[in-house]
Every structure is written in C-alpha cells, then in structure tokens.
C-alpha cells in the first residue's frame, strides 16, 4: 500500500471527507449569517441554537409522528423559518434603530433560552437519528470508501449554497434584496415592502440553519449542545471570509473544513484551534477578511 506524506491514503481521505462535511455545515451556517447580516445588520447568535432545533424537529417528526427523513428535510427548515419569522416580528424588529450590538445581545439571550430549555428536557446526552434507507451503504472509490449519506450531505449543501448564491446574485428578487441591503429607504420609496423582505430574509437565513440541522442529525447525534460550540467556529469563519460576499462565505466555510480535516491527520492536537489561528493570521494581514470590504 502506498503512502502520502507518511499517512495511509484511507486515513488522509477519510479525514478530508470529514473536513468537507464539517465545511458544508460551516458554509450553510455562515451563509445564513451573511444573508441575515447583510439585510438586518444583526449577527444572529441564536443561529447555532436554531440549527439544533432543526435537528430536534427532525427527531420529533420521526419519533412522535412517524414522518421520515425526507419529510424532515422539508418540514424542519419550514418550522425553524417560522420560529425565525416570529422572533423577527416580535423581538428583533424593535431594535433596528439602536446600536447593532443590541441585536447580538438579544439573540444571545434567545440562544441561552432555546438551549437551556432543550437541555432541561433532554439532558446533555445525544439522541440517535438513523440514516434514511435510500442513503445507506457506500461506494468503494478505489482509494477510499465513501458512505452514501456523507456524499449526499456534501452534495446537498453545495447545491443549496449555490442555489442561494444564484437566487441572490442572478434573480430579480435577489436584486431587490441587494438593493435593500445598500439603501433600504430608497428601495422602499420604489414601492417594495422592505419590512416584509427583512422578515423573510431572517426566516430564510435561519431556515438554512434548520436544514443544516436535519442534514447533521444522522451524522452527529441530536443533542441540545450540538450548536453552541459550532456557532463560535462559524463566527470565526465569518470573520475570516468577511461578510461582504455570499460566494466568500461558501468558499471559506468549505476551505476551513478541509483545513481542519488536514490538521486532524498531521497534528491532531491543534485541530480544535486551527480555525482560530487562521482567523488571527487573517486579521493581521487583511483585517477586512479574505472576501470582505470595510463597512
């Protein structure tokens, strides 16, 4: 058996695949954060908690209603999106005239409430969620074994990410959205209902988090704390990529996931902190982030 850089290829590609999967979640979550930030100027601290809720909705659907994975893929993002719409309408919308930091503090409080409530109910141990039948098994690619479900997660999140990019950069609705990000007052003057757009943007952004939660459910266990550490890494991803560009969020998310996978192979002790180290380096060289511009 040949070796690459002193590491068996199965190990290397296995970790790279894991990294790519983590990267898919980083990309989906940072994309949602970027979309929300662009429109609302709010950093959504509750994003990790809503990702967790997405996974729990899938778990509920399966265990209480007997609805399987494919239903969850549709219903969980919708539920999380609805939660987002309610949060935006009742709470967040009161804060737009104030300093943006209050939005961060409010969503931080919400994250504590959501996570605390689920933790109170389910404890810290995870609930298992089975892989759907259609995606069981795997492919032998010669150099490595690819479980079908993992391949599906990577493919699905890339499709969703680029779908979102296309919708924002290439469609009329996306053009309204970008215009409203630049100058909401002017867009409103043209007869477009900006408050509704803001609400829907927040709903859509958190629905992406909910979708990521469903995709993650069969890989990681469904646990109340699954989002709380992830969200901090995603924040670092967002700082590295800069929130100016949609494509930047996607590329940075996937790239950092891969980098994390590589670190796990060659220097496992540092795999938890490599993203933060990259963030520090990027801040030293290009403070606005790789794809960002100063606002």
């Amino acid at each position, binding site marked *: 058996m040949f070796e690459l850089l002193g590491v068996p290829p199965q190990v290397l590609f296995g970790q790279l695949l894991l990294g790519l999967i983590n990267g898919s979640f980083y990309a989906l979550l940072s994309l949602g954060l970027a979309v929300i930030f662009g429109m609302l100027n709010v950093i959504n601290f509750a994003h990790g908690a809503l990702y967790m809720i997405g996974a729990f909705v899938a778990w509920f659907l399966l265990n209480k209603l007997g609805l399987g994975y494919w239903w969850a893929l549709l219903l969980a993002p919708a539920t999380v999106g609805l939660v987002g719409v309610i949060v935006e309408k009742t709470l967040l919308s009161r804060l737009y005239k104030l300093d*943006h930091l209050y939005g*961060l503090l409010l969503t*931080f409080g919400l994250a*504590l*409430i*959501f996570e605390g409530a689920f*933790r109170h109910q389910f404890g810290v141990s995870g609930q298992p969620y089975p892989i759907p039948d259609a995606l069981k098994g795997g492919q032998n690619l010669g150099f490595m074994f690819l479980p079908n479900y993992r391949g599906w997660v990577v493919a699905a999140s890339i499709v969703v990410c680029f779908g979102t990019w296309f919708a924002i950069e290439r469609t009329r609705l996306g053009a309204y959205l970008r215009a409203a990000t630049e100058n909401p007052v002017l867009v409103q003057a043209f007869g477009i209902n900006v408050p509704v757009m803001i609400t829907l943007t927040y709903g859509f952004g958190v629905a992406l988090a909910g979708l990521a939660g469903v995709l993650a459910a069969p890989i990681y266990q469904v646990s109340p704390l699954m989002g709380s550490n992830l969200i901090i890494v995603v*924040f670092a991803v967002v*700082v590295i990529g800069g929130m100016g560009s949609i494509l930047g969020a996607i590329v940075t998310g996937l790239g950092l996931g891969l980098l994390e996978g590589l670190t796990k192979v060659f220097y496992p002790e540092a795999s938890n902190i490599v993203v933060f180290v990259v963030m520090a380096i990027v801040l030293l060289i290009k403070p606005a982030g790789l794809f960002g511009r100063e606002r």
Partner: protein
Amino acid sequence: MTAETHKMTTVAVRQTSEDTTRRTLLLAAGLAVGLAAPFVLYPVFVMKVLCFALFACAFNLLIGFAGLLSFGHAAFFGGAAYITAHAAKVWGLPPELSILLGAGFSAVLGLAFGALAIRRQGIYFAMITLALAQMVFFLALQLKFTGGEDGIQGVPRGQLFGLFDLNQPLVMYYFVLAIFLFGFALIWRTVHSPFGQVLKAIRENEPRAISLGYRTERYKLLAFVLSASLAGLAGGTKALVFQLASLTDVQWQMSGEVVLMTLLGGMGTLFGPVVGAALVVTLESYLAGTNLPVPVVIGAIFVVCVLLFRRGIVGELQAFLARRKS
C-alpha cells in the same frame, strides 16, 4: 448605546457639589456594607459577589467607557484562575504573588487579543474576542497542567505576606474586599482621568477623536489591557476563594454572564456592574435550589433587559433622579 450614554454624559457634566456629597455618602455606605457583610451573610457568598463585581467592573470599563463589546472576557478571568491556582498549588507561591502572576498573565493575553481585535469594530470586535477566547478554552481543555475536566482542585489559600492565615474565612474576606476596593478605585481613577475622557470621546465618535489627533487605537488597546488585567485579578482571587480553577471559568457562558451582569446593572455607570453582579450571583444561588433551568432564566433576563431597560437598574435610577431634578 451611543444615544443613551450621550445623555448620561451630559448629566455627568452638570454634576454639582451636591452630587459629589451624595456620591461620597454613597461610597461610605457601600464601604460600611462591605465591612459588615460577612457578619450578616455567608462570607464565601459575599466573596463570590465581590469577585464577580470586580470582573463586571473590569468588563464595564471596556463596554461602558470605550464602547467595545468584548465577548471573550472569560479567557482573562478563567486563564488567570488557572495560572493563580497552578502557582499556589504546584509552585507553592504565596497568595499575593500567585494572584499577581494570574493578573499579569491576563495582561499579556489581553495585549495579544486586544492587538488583534481592535483591528475591527462593533460586531466583528465581539466575534473576534469570542473566537479567541474559545481558543483559550480548547487549550485549557487539552493542556496537561489545567487538569482537563477536573480543573485544578484543592488550591491552598496560604499565608498572605507570610503573616495572615487566609484559611480563616474573615481574614480571607477582608483580603478579597481589599482587592475589590483596589480594582474599583483604579477603575474610578481611570474613568475620571484625562485618559478616561478620551475613551469616552472614542465611544461617542471615533472619527472625530481621530481628527482631533488622538491615536485612538492606542487608547483602545490600553483600555483593553487594563480591563483584561483587572478581569484576571478577579479570576485569580476567585481561584483562591473557591480553591478551584475549572473549565466553567473559561467557557463562553462565563463571558455571557459578565455581559449580563453589566447590562442588568447599567453599562457605563460605576456602580451598575456591582449591583448587577450581586443580583446575578444571588439569583443563581437561589435557582440552584429549585428545579428551574438556570440558562433559560438568565436568557430571559437578557431579552427583557435588551428590550425594556437598556440603561440597566442603576442607569434607569440615575435617569429617574435627573428627570425629577429638572
């Protein structure tokens, strides 16, 4: 935060001698309460309040007077706790040196984090400090000397200056009180110094401060280091009080907790963080005896504070007194 704090500064400008007398009376009353407290309340509880009050005051120096929201202050608090605990337990250093070492570590850490974080503003600043603090958390989880999940337990309190036995609750209490008063006085002096005035100017309008010729980055960095050191002072003291340094101290929830204490008490007021810390610590020890989930209650208070009274308890009180006077 700018609109409200602006109002507060105008109130402060109108300060008369009557205000000064009232403030001196308030300080004297506070000091009397601090001296008498261990005879009425459980000393360890009051010491906990004092540690967190100092922590919150240090945090408030940044958010309240320089307008910088750090979401990573747990790194300084918990990091110093580990260093102090290690110094006292493994190296056998006396308590005053151990605490000083912890605070010094936080100062150096604050210099490194601050230099990175002040490159971005506002929300980014919060996210960067949070991410850097998370790095410290992972280091604390993995390094050998921190003891992983167990933390450093059984830290000896030792003899202060080789004279006072800190194992006696009252002696320990007055030591903690002295540290708190030192930190509080330092913050008081800083806020009322020309340096503090420049910080407030940066908070209100940074471009204008720059155009007046101030190198705002240096001011912000110095404020950050000062705040980190004082947070470290609080963390190191806390490690000796509870004879324990653990992962709880470096977790991001701790950073959130200090934000809440300051927000609840009143950002940008000197006494607010003390009131907020006392309330949150009391609430948590009360909740520990009930079946209510603590994070939910804490989160709910966060939401209510942000939506309904952003000036915090002391801030609202000051605004009320100012309204009644005019």
